């Protein structure tokens, strides 16, 4: 059992929790993820580590309430426990020889992008962060990003806060103005990552995308998290849980990944509705 030490509502659909898991806290590096199970009958879901406190033995997670499991998790309070919490899984984000980085985060993906930005900042790299949200109400972690970025651009789709538009707009402007980066790291919805990649391509800047596919064990056993890379004209199957979650974005078949992540769309929506009704009646 793993205790919820702190819980904070970041916006109406996004919650932050700090979970007591000393072994994971000691090991986890930015870019890695954990798998949790809320209760005995729960499913296993992967969530990226949003920060750690090795001394306190806690791991920070930030999640969006999108389905039955995250709904159940969100109903847990400080002091309560969750059944399973295992990690750190996957490979950490590569930071070597990157002196100037652009982090492009979208929505709840910013929760994953934040520790990556912090790590680059800590290592002394020059950090540009571009973070985008649908609207003002969904904005999260602005202060945290400001603290670890040399330059921060905030975008909202509807213009209800900061600048209106997609994250690709300021990225394109920077690149067109002759700005260069050792690496662009993009974390967020698949469609956003696809367009960040397309935006960067003409300028030849390396792009890494952090993938978050459907997963069960997270240790390289089930193969549910597989994705296809196009490498030198060959299609190569990779497993996000052990080979990733970060991949060279130019090689990723984003369209296939977008299709695969909707495999259980209807079943999940039904399950979420049932769970919501359960809590309503309780």
């Amino acid at each position: 059992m793993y205790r919820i030490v702190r819980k904070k509502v970041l916006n109406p659909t996004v919650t932050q929790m700090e979970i007591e898991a000393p072994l994971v806290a000691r090991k986890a590096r930015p870019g890695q993820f954990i798998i949790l199970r809320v209760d005995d009958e729960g499913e296993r879901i992967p969530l990226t580590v949003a920060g750690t406190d090795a001394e306190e033995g806690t791991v920070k997670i930030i999640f969006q309430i999108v389905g039955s499991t995250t709904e159940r998790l969100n109903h847990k309070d400080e002091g309560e426990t969750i059944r399973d919490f295992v990690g750190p899984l996957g490979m950490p984000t590569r930071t070597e020889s990157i002196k100037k980085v652009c982090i492009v985060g979208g929505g709840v993906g910013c929760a994953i992008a934040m520790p990556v930005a912090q790590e680059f900042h800590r290592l002394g790299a020059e950090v540009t962060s571009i973070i985008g949200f649908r609207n003002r109400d969904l904005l999260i972690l602005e202060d945290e990003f400001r603290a670890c970025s040399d330059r921060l651009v905030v975008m909202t789709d509807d213009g209800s806060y900061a600048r209106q538009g997609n994250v690709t707009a300021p990225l394109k402007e920077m690149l067109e103005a002759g700005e260069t980066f050792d690496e662009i790291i993009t974390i967020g919805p698949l469609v956003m990552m696809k367009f960040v990649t397309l935006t960067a391509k003409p300028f030849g800047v390396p792009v890494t995308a952090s993938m978050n596919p459907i997963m069960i064990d997270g240790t390289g056993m089930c193969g549910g998290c597989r994705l296809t890379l196009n490498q030198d004209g060959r299609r190569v199957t990779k497993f996000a849980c052990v080979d990733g979650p970060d991949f060279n974005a130019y090689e990723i078949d984003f369209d296939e990944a977008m299709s695969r992540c909707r495999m259980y769309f209807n079943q999940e929506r039904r399950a979420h509705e049932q769970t919501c009704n359960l809590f309503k009646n309780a």
Partner: protein
Amino acid sequence: MAIIPSKHEMPTQAPEVRAHNFREVALGYSEATALSEAQRCLNCKNRPCVEGCPVNIQIPDFISKVKEGDYESAYRIISKTSSLPAVCGRVCPQETQCEAKCTLGIKFEPVGIGRLERFVADWHNAQSLSAAEKPAGNGHRVAVVGSGPSGLTCAGDLAKKGYAVTVYEALHAAGGVLVYGIPEFRLPKAIVAREVETLKQLGVDVQTDVVIGKTLTVDELFEMGYEAVFIGTGAGLPRFMDIPGESLKGVYSANEYLTRSNLMKAYLDDPQTPIMKGGYVAVVGGGNVAMDAARTALRLGAEHVYIIYRRSMEELPARREEVEHAEEEGIDFRLLCNPVEILGFENPDDPRDPRNGFVDGIRCVKMELGEPDASGRRRPVVIPGSEFELHVDTVIMALGTSPNPLIKNTTQGLEVNRHGGIIVSEDGLTSREGVYAGGDAVTGAATVISAMGAGKVAARSIDEYLSGK
């Protein structure tokens, strides 16, 4: 007394009934049947059956006790060499091991050794209330990585000798392939839980949610005070065929499909973990895992289930009983067939059609057997122009696995072969001092009992290594 020429039949649920439920297929011998079957054992002098058993259960001795009606003594004889009697009685391929060597089998059908083993283990589990006794400790600590058949066997054998053993399991439940892989209808989860409980009574500490190679490394285990480590991490990355369409929605590895159904309980009515149910299902492969996946699909509500295998029935590697059960249940075997492409639904007029990208069919070619290959089996060759299509909604790839890379990648000096299997000596010792390994992590996909045998060998070696310290 005249010898009964045939094994007593194993009573089973009727095929038309069991195809729609997840309860155990084989129901087990009654006491009267067990007594009568035990009488068939000749108690011959040279005891070839013992040689045929990877863990050398003293088979004629336990059968003699069954003849006397002393089932508890029979159980004690089995459990002296096997940590998982109720499991082996159910899932061992006896026809190629102990029973293949049985003297009676030369003229008649061999003794139903596996069925008797199961009877004895079930009798013990139902009747015996006494907890296993925890032996006096010898002061040595051993870490076991993975709680599948090799890990549990190694842990059990060492605990009986007084070692303080901790088993580290990556998943949330102990049992490894016995819980995530083998379905309820072949090996009820309660039986695995009971065997794990017995190990705990012996003093074995089971830690779930710990991934060795990630949460802790092998080196850290030594720093924590463990003097030897056994690696039994089992199957790893699932293999695919590298044909077009394998990333379509509705294509599973058997590992994923079975894990969703077994470990995540998608076989229950209201699961939190989703799985695609119903429709037409094709399972590709011919091993036990393929049979398990096909029969699971049927029980989850599939209308029709194919097994597609590129060789013939003779080469089918699955346990004979599973193949027979699958046939009785109506699984459609398409032998000497090989998939070349998985076909997906695509609505040309509507890119937002929710059916787009889901499996719609499988294109196969027919095969014939040619010259024997390196394995001695006749190599299947494509018959030109034999392409055909089957309509299916789900495809399950049961083609085996490659060993898990997590420990190899984080343990310096641990040598692996070109398939990724950990290299061990005859004693189960790896290239690192104090580190032993066994099971699928060494051999690639094999059987429960061979993994148990490897766990046993390693336990003996670890005991020799540490008692010399």
